[in-house]
């Protein structure tokens, strides 16, 4: 019984750290979105510090998971939760990195915002919403919410396609904007990737609750 209670304690610590990391991810992506829409390089700087917090949390969670696996040798649902957590933190960490990359690009935009292309703000908000929803799904063990994200990913993918064609015509009209257009393309790509990572997290949430992974 003592072993089990210690195990539960460690599991709840893991859960707590996971939510914390999720919240940091949400925070970092919201910061980059705001910085992008306002063309605020100062806010973009703050993203970097947040990114370090995310990396630190990733290592912490990793060591908790490994400790749990080695010392407690969990089975069934507990094992699913821990292995899903190990997979999820990789995606979360990638989200943090990509938000950092976006912030990095913002400081090169010379005060121009992402609002010049209509679909970029849409992608930014959609990506932020997906991250929030995937973390929500994890917190509430909400499989329905997780599944809804699989379809929502299309919103971002479609917007990405529109952004691409809009940027092509932008370059065609005015070649001087070429660099800006390329930067926007990178940002759009990062948002698209963030959406994919959010879907990955949602898949692992479904796995940890039901034991069925969508990829199977």
């Amino acid at each position, binding site marked *: 019984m003592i072993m089990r209670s210690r195990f539960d304690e460690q599991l709840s610590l893991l859960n707590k750290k996971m*939510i*914390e990391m999720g*919240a940091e991810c*949400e*925070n970092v992506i919201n910061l980059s979105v705001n910085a992008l829409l306002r063309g605020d390089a100062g806010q973009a700087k703050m993203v970097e510090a947040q990114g370090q917090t995310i990396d630190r949390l990733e290592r912490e969670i990793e060591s908790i998971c490994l400790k749990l696996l080695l010392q407690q040798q969990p089975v069934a649902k507990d094992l699913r939760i821990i292995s899903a957590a190990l997979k999820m933190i990789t995606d979360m960490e990638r989200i943090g990195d990509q938000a950092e990359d976006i912030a990095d690009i913002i400081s090169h935009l010379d005060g121009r915002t992402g609002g010049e292309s209509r679909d970029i703000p849409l992608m930014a908000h959609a990506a932020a919403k997906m991250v929030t929803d995937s973390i929500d799904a994890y*917190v509430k063990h909400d499989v329905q919410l997780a599944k809804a994200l699989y379809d929502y990913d299309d919103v971002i993918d479609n917007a990405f396609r529109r952004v691409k064609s809009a940027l092509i015509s932008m370059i065609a009209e005015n070649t001087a904007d070429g660099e800006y257009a390329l930067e926007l393309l990178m940002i759009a790509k990062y948002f698209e990737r963030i959406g994919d990572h959010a879907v990955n997290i949602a898949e692992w949430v479904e796995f940890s609750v039901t034991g069925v992974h969508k990829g199977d």
Partner: protein
Amino acid sequence: MAVMAASLLITSGFLYEYYSKSQENQLKEELDFAAEMVEKEGVEFLESLNFSLCRFTLVSPDGSVLYDSMADLDEMDNHTDREEIAEALKTGRGSSKRYSATLTQRTVYEAVRLENGGVLRASVNQATVGTLILNLFPAITGIVLVSVALALFLSHKMSKSIVKPFNEIDLENPEKNETYDELAPMLEKISTQHRQISVQMLELKRRTDEFEKITGSMNEGLVLLDKNGNVLSMNTAAEKLFCVDDTIKGCSFLSVDRSVNVTRAVEKALQGKRSNLTETRNGREYRFIVSCNEYEGTTAGAVILCIDVTETAFAERNRREFTANVSHELKTPLQSIIGSAELLENGLVEPEDTNRFIGNIKNEAVRLVNMIEEIIRLSRLDEGSCPPAGRVNLYAVAADTVESLKVLAEKKRVRIFLDGERDCFITGVKSYLQEIIYNLCDNAIRYNKEGGEVKVALKKDKEKIVLSVSDTGIGIPAEHRNRIFERFYRVDKSHSRETGGTGLGLSIVKHAVAYHGGTLTLDSEENKGTVITVCFHNAPEIQKQ
């Protein structure tokens, strides 16, 4: 088992000892008797003995066997080397014990010297201890088995009968049991504790109910956390705020709300520091007060109080705007007065323009006075002081007002007319009603187009009297419609000088209508006109604000 075996060994050892001693004594007695008889009757006595427990051997002084009751004489050799016989020859009596080759038998010999120098020997065979035990073993085993079974059965039965009263004790009602007297004090104690516990439980339940009722009816969200940051309790308002239900109890607060600021505030509170932050949730603004809950000097948890400050924040913004507006509106005419006065003072004004400048100063001063008067009126309405109310004919009031505005209307080339029922009596304050109609008509004329018209209409039915003022003016753009009743609010700020007015008229209307318990509706279309409808109920309650 070991104890049983040991006791068996010891008992059989003692028994054997006693048994063999008594046998030896018997053997001695028998030998003495036989020796006496042999002395008297010779060897014939032995021969006549056809029944005896022991074996007799008569040995001559030289050691040859003269008689043996069991063995053949021819086979027997000289007996002088036998221990007991040698001893008897020497001392008159001898005895010895010998074990057979298999150790299963022991032979006890007793010998006595006769008067003729010969020796009479009696011997008897004894079983050894081992044989004894071996022989006894089946019987002992049987007895042990039977007794063990019997003991098991009996002890089971007995313990059952002893324990039965214990099992039958009804611990819910300890004092009602009839059981061992020895248990009575304990049962009494239990029953007292029972009563104490139920009283305490009742008290506890009453308190939690009380707490839940108080927190449940609170508009503010209240969350209690334990020292690990897990949710202990959450009132209804908080559950609504965070969109969770009461299954969240016992979970970490992170799964309720994971916003970084709140998380940090909770961490700080658990270290004993209080913090205060404003956050937006579900489109409303909340102030979170996170403080530490201390119990006997140690941190027992944290308390989060969430106050909806949307209205307060809005009112705060409005108040700030109002103050800015007031100072601006009051300053503008004064600046113009000062400007004109300075020009006059420095003699920079041509004599023929002097009158125009003085007229300017007068006009601005009048504007200022008007504005201040309106502010005073508004603040009276704000205070809710109630001037005498009476029966007022709204038609008569409207007729007077329309008449007094005719001059202004003609100046702007606007036609103004009154239409409707002639006896519209309501209970109200005449001066306020006058204000309402005057301000509405005044606006309708000011913001009209040249050649437009203003229609004041009065309609009456059983329940209410409806006053509507419609114009054919410039209308109000949709985005301003919600705000025109605010103080000093102007749709077009740059036009304020041209059209005159203070920006307080509609605000006064709003307050005066509310004072009479009426409702105010606005219907407007840009460039076509505006209709403002005031609806008074027939039995209006004068409301104090």
